[in-house]
């Protein structure tokens, strides 16, 4: 073996010389040793690096492992823990495992790992080096361009940040003034209402008396069974009257309680009936809205409500989707029942049974499959179940009801405020709308605007005559309207402030290079799925109409080279979904790849100029000039 080794060594050395004239002849003493390590092997007696033993120069690379750590056999496969160095002249040197030496597979491009003659490895270093150098040059070019773009981005971010900060401070001062005005209006309004209340009571008393008389008259006239139809049988005028009164009452109550009033007319009109419906609804909205979000108030209630309900449904869906029985008692008991039903599989068709059993292994929906009729049938049954569940109050509202209310509400909505008021987690590209919304407030927001409204308010306040009886309806309405308008403006400003605060609390990188990411989402389509990554917000996987949360924004990691999204939707029988976005230098912001290497743990690559760092160019250029160094990221 030893002799054979020496012969083959010589042969391979000759081969190497022939292949690459520039390659130095590796002798037994230097085989597999990195240049910077050669001095370690100079003495006649050499220590194992782990200190376990000493060996002589003859024992170096003699195909027998003396040091368990491989010190004595850098150039052979004798020590399992050894490392082999190939110089790879023309390319980058490689340190590989000693298990690769003479295993019949060419690992080093210079072929130096295969020297026993069993296999001949052509020297491909020059070729490979060329490809690598070209690639490196391309990369350097990308970095150079990227650095420029990055600088611009950083500059833009700086301005945007400054602008946002300026806006915030201005909004804060506006908020202060508006608050005072609204407070004044409120006091005024309350006084008016007190006056009105007194009037109303008086009138009520009269009406009561009137009604009493009327009722007595009716009783004597009508048969008892008709009384149950009273309300519907009443003359329209009466109904309207009644409703007007009730509506007014409700309306005022709720306005006081909730600072919320949609009626804009100066007279209590017939459409108060609608107003009442809206108002009743608002009561519930107000409750849920407040529960959901302490900052939401005023005119945004309806939207909060809408969103809240939608979210509630989403949550219910995702919870049902992901939670185990036991976390939601109602749900689990429901499922337990279902489980029992499914236990007696006798009711199932053969195919249903097959699917059910298969699904244990596959976690797939048992209803899934080609047989659409069957699927539809199952779908129907379960829809009904769910509806029942809804009525039991688990899911706050059914879809249809909700839609109806939405439509109604939207009519009454301040249209421009539209769909804005959403949680940061609920939206991913809403800021642009915001800016236009606020243009009237902020862009033209000179002090004259404030002066003007202050003036208006003062006029209104002064114009009202408290001593007139009955209360001047038109004047009272003006006060109310002004109150409503300004409290609505105030809440807009407050919500904008909170949104800005929310935004500014994030870490946007060393140079705020990720500032523009706040308002952006990146998409990538892979087969049937579309992946959406919205930094600082969330990431999702969308398939048709359904969306799966891959995670909520967690943080940057690995010094801004990775974005983490965590606590996404739960995987059945698995972990919560999460996404790790690895950032790469590139000229465009682009989601280039997304994968699920481990179940429900997604990994994506986002190319972005933000990662094109100047100091990195230096490193890459060093590599390009042929410095033997680590070849990371090549």
């Amino acid at each position, binding site marked *: *073996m*030893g002799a054979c080794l020496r012969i083959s060594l010589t042969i391979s050395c000759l081969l190497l010389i022939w292949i690459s004239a520039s390659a130095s002849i590796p002798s037994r003493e230097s085989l597999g040793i990195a240049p910077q390590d050669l001095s370690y092997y100079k003495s006649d007696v050499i220590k194992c690096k*782990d200190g*376990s*033993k000493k060996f002589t120069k003859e024992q170096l690379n003699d*195909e027998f492992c*003396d040091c*368990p*750590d491989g010190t004595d056999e850098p150039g052979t496969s004798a020590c*399992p*823990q050894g490392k082999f160095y190939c110089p790879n002249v023309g390319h980058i040197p490689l340190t590989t*495992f000693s*298990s690769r030496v003479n295993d*019949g*597979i060419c690992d080093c491009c210079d072929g130096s790992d295969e020297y026993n003659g*069993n296999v001949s490895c052509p020297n491909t270093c020059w070729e490979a080096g060329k490809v690598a150098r070209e690639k490196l040059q391309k990369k350097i070019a990308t970095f150079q361009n990227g650095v420029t773009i990055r600088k611009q981005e950083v500059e833009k971010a700086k301005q945007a940040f400054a602008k946002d900060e300026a806006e915030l401070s201005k909004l804060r001062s506006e908020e202060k003034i508006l608050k005072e005005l609204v407070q004044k209006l409120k006091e005024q309004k309350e006084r008016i209402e007190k006056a009105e209340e007194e009037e109303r009571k008086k009138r009520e008393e009269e009406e009561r008396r009137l009604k009493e008389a009327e009722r007595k008259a009716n009783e004597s006239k009508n048969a008892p069974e008709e009384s149950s139809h009273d309300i519907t049988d009443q003359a329209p005028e009466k109904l309207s009257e009644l409703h007007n009164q009730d509506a007014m009452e409700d309306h005022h109550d709720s306005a006081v309680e909730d600072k919320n009033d949609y009626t804009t007319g100066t007279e209590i009109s017939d459409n108060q009936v609608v107003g009442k419906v809206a108002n009743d609804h608002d009561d519930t909205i107000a409750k849920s809205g407040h529960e959901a979000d302490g900052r939401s108030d005023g005119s945004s209630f309806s939207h909060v409500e809408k969103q809240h309900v939608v979210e509630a449904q989403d949550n219910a*869906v*995702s*919870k*049902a*989707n*992901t*939670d*185990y*029985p036991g976390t939601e008692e109602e749900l689990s008991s429901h499922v337990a029942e*279902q*489980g029992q039903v*499914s236990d007696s*599989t006798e009711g199932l068709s*053969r*195919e249903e049974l097959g*699917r059910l*059993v298969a*699904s*244990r292994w596959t*976690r797939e929906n048992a*209803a899934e499959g*080609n047989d659409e009729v069957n699927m539809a049938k*199952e*779908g129907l049954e*379960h*829809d009904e179940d*769910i509806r029942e569940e809804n009525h039991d109050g688990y899911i706050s509202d059914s879809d249809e009801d909700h839609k109806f209310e939405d439509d109604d509400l939207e009519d009454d909505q301040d249209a421009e405020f539209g769909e804005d008021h959403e949680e940061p987690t609920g939206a991913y590209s809403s800021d642009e709308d915001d800016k236009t919304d606020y243009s009237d407030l902020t862009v033209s927001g000179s002090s004259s605007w404030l002066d003007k409204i202050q003036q208006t308010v003062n006029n209104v306040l002064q114009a009202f005559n408290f001593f007139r009886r009955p209360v001047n309806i038109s004047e009272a309405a003006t006060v109310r309207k002004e109150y409503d308008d300004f409290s609505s403006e105030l809440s807009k400003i407050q919500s904008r402030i909170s949104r800005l605060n929310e935004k500014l609390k994030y870490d946007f990188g060393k140079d705020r290079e990720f500032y523009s990411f706040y308002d952006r989402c990146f998409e990538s389509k892979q*087969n049937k799925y579309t992946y959406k990554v919205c930094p600082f917000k969330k990431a999702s996987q969308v398939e*048709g*109409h*359904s*969306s*799966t949360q891959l995670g909520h924004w967690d943080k940057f990691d690995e010094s801004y080279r990775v974005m983490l999204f965590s606590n996404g*939707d739960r*995987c*059945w*029988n*698995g972990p919560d*979904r999460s996404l790790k976005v690895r950032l790469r230098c590139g000229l465009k912001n682009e989601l280039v790849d997304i994968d*699920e*290497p*481990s*179940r*429900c743990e997604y990994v994506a690559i986002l190319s972005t100029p933000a990662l094109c760092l100047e100091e990195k160019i230096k490193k890459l250029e060093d590599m390009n000039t042929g410095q033997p160094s680590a070849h990371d990221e090549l």
Partner: protein
Amino acid sequence: MPSPASRSPPLLLLVPFLLLLLFSAASAWKKDEFRNCNQTPFCKRARGRKAHSVPSLSTADISISDGAVVARLLPSQPLRQATDGDDPESDTVPPRPLLLRISVYQGGVLRLHIDEDASAPRRRFQVPDVLLPDLDDRRLWLSRLSSPAAGSSSFYLAEGFEAVLVHDPFQIQVRRKGSGEPVLSFNSHGLFDFEQLRAKKNDDEDWEERFRGHTDTRPHGPQSISFDISFHGADFVYGIPEHASTSLALRPTSGPGVEFSEPYRLFNLDVFEYLDDSPFGLYGSIPFMLSHGARSSSGFFWLNAAEMQIDVLGPGWDDPAAPAKDRIDTVWMSEAGVVDAFFFVGHEPKDVLRQYTGITGTPAMPQEFAVAYHQCRWNYRDEEDVAAVDAGFDEHDIPYDVLWLDIEHTDGKRYFTWDRVLFPNPQEMQGKLAAKGRHMVTIVDPHIKRDDSFYIHKEASERGYYVKDASGKDFDGWCWPGSSSYLDVLNPEIREWWAEKFSFENYVGSTPSLYIWNDMNEPSVFNGPEISMPRDAIHFGDVEHRELHNAYGYYFHMATSNGLLKRGNGKDRPFVLSRAFFAGSQRYGAVWTGDNTADWDHLRASVPMILTLGLTGMTFSGADVGGFFGNPEPELLVRWYQLGAYYPFFRAHAHQDTKRREPWLFGERNTALIREAVHVRYSLLPYYYTLFREASVSGIPVMRPLWLEFPADKETYNNGEAFMVGPSLLVQGIYEERQKSVSVYLPAGQSWYNLRNGVSYAGGVSHKLEVSEDSIPTFQRAGTIIPRKDRFRRSSTQMVNDPYTLVIALNGSFAAEGELYVDDGKTYDFEQGAYIHRRFIFADLKLTSVNIHPANLGGKFPSDCVIERIVLLGLPSGAKKAVIEPGNREANVELGPLTLRGGSSPDAITVRKPNVHIADDWTLRIL
């Protein structure tokens, strides 16, 4: 796979509920889905009988015919009234005589055959193609019956053994000649019952059976057989896989102190999330039981493929006041078939294994790569994934030999096809693995998608190759592809047809480095009774599925294995892993213990399960390393690798819902520990391969219960925690989280060397040992020599030319022996003698390599491999050098590490570079 929440609005609401529903359905083993004995009429009837309560039969017309003992069995005279009320048929049907035939085979095997006579309305099923075809050549020609006592006849069985047929009531006993000491007896408790075929009557309530919405028409009525077998001189009985158990010996299922236990069930089933300890039947069935005691070893095998239930009766079951000593009684019950039973009377347990594998075959010699490490997962998703996993092993310097693809690689679960999007270039992919000496395995199951555009289905349905349902139509069941039919592999013609499908032309995308995995071959039918095929389905020759159920997977495995053999023109040894198995499956490939769970108890149960498989012929077996269901904690995964590295079949596998668990995903420390565990296996490959050779010749398994090596040491009889690998290595598993110490019993007779540090321990004692995270306790028995290869490569194929290390553990008289078998690892050339087989003998300070390749065989296997290192454990210090003959060469002797692992101290006496060739004769003298 990406996990969509749902696909359309109505489903948006529906899916979560379904998923939850499924989760609750999936959370545990569904006991109710499977029959217990009480729900199985034949079992209930048989189990209800008391000793000697069955109307007895007596022999008539005993004679020798054609070299065998023949007789008729008739009701004992006078015909006793049935004492047992729930045996309706015995009252109503006048029994026809049964035909009995007893034959004797070389090596101490008695065969008992009982069937109905020709007047039966139908022929009962006899399992074909299980017994070795040359068995008849080994039959002894009986010529003489003796009459040792009135009412009995005896005849020769083997040297020192005879068989006795007692006439009335009929009983058979195998006993030692001279002393008359019984070894095995049949019907000594009068429980033999044979339900004869008969015509249906109107009021017959036993006729049809219903179970969970499935109706079994049972057109031939009840036809079960039951009897009692007693193992004399037995301390324990073993065998009859497959059951999950943490006990190696079979625990009693009935008798005093045993409450509510089911009998051991042999019925091949696909059980979701099986329990770690239950007599419930799993994927395979081998109706072979062994007994062992200090005085005797014996075995009993019933060749019958119908559902079987076996009770092991606790002492005192028949008479609590006088429990039998040194005897274990068992009751065997089968739903159909005939009595075709074999009695094995070996002196030693290894004799019994030789006798059993002498009739059902020894394990096939595997290719060497198949003995190495396998990496599997449901599923490696696409070619990129495959490439990444392959690269991961290289990057972390962990060897592996085989990458596996589960069902998702196919085009819609149509086996022999590839998903075109995920695997567009399967040949190129296999080529890349093959370039590194690695292999690939794809899955091929027996259910065929009922899709007319699928050529397999088209051909199979046109040719009528499917199993039929009770009404005669192609049976249509549900499995992975949806609506599926099942090939009738009982038919040899269909097996031939199937085998052709594996040719490179037919299996498009396959290459010579591709091998096969047969799953779901119990067969698994998702919408069938007990997740399997209805018992009244009809096979070739009008055989009912109930009659052959347990052998269905066997025939499928056989057909697949023959397909690979054909593919390689009979030169390439097949590798086919099967989940279902039957007696004889060892001839066709490997098996594994199916869908286990990632918990410590399943880790523990894996050892008794694999040991039991080894005892019943299936030595090439293993459990999914890491556990199939669930996510193992890193510590459990590491422990599983450390134990699994010693399984004969070493494969990691995981369910698709689990987190990825390739060895390098749990941090550097755990990666290093797993690498070390895999390296241990690779370094022992020469030893393992030698043991597989031994198994293929003698039937002695690779992984052995301690008592197989130490039959006289009672302490070992029920040790299911530790095991022997071959004759030389003892391995103790670690089955508990954060275990700090373990008690290891080292069998008596010799001392043992800890393979980690060379420390020697006395035998015959339990040692309390500290447990470290880096290995599980492993010992080399004094007096043995183990060949190793300590250089690691990407895969076993690159190790072919690497030099050997011999580890010699000396006994008290400074002697040791060991063997090395080497061949090309791939072809059948070894059958022509192309192999190296050496025995290394160390005595009187001299190591000799002796050729044990039989000279008359001819043939030669060339090898330039040398021994680079010899480690001597137990040699007094003072050795200076070694002198090698021929050539009078010298080699240095010095202290070196026992293993080439970082941190090992150089404290073992080591012969440095003797460089003697393994193919040559030589001696090496220590001076």
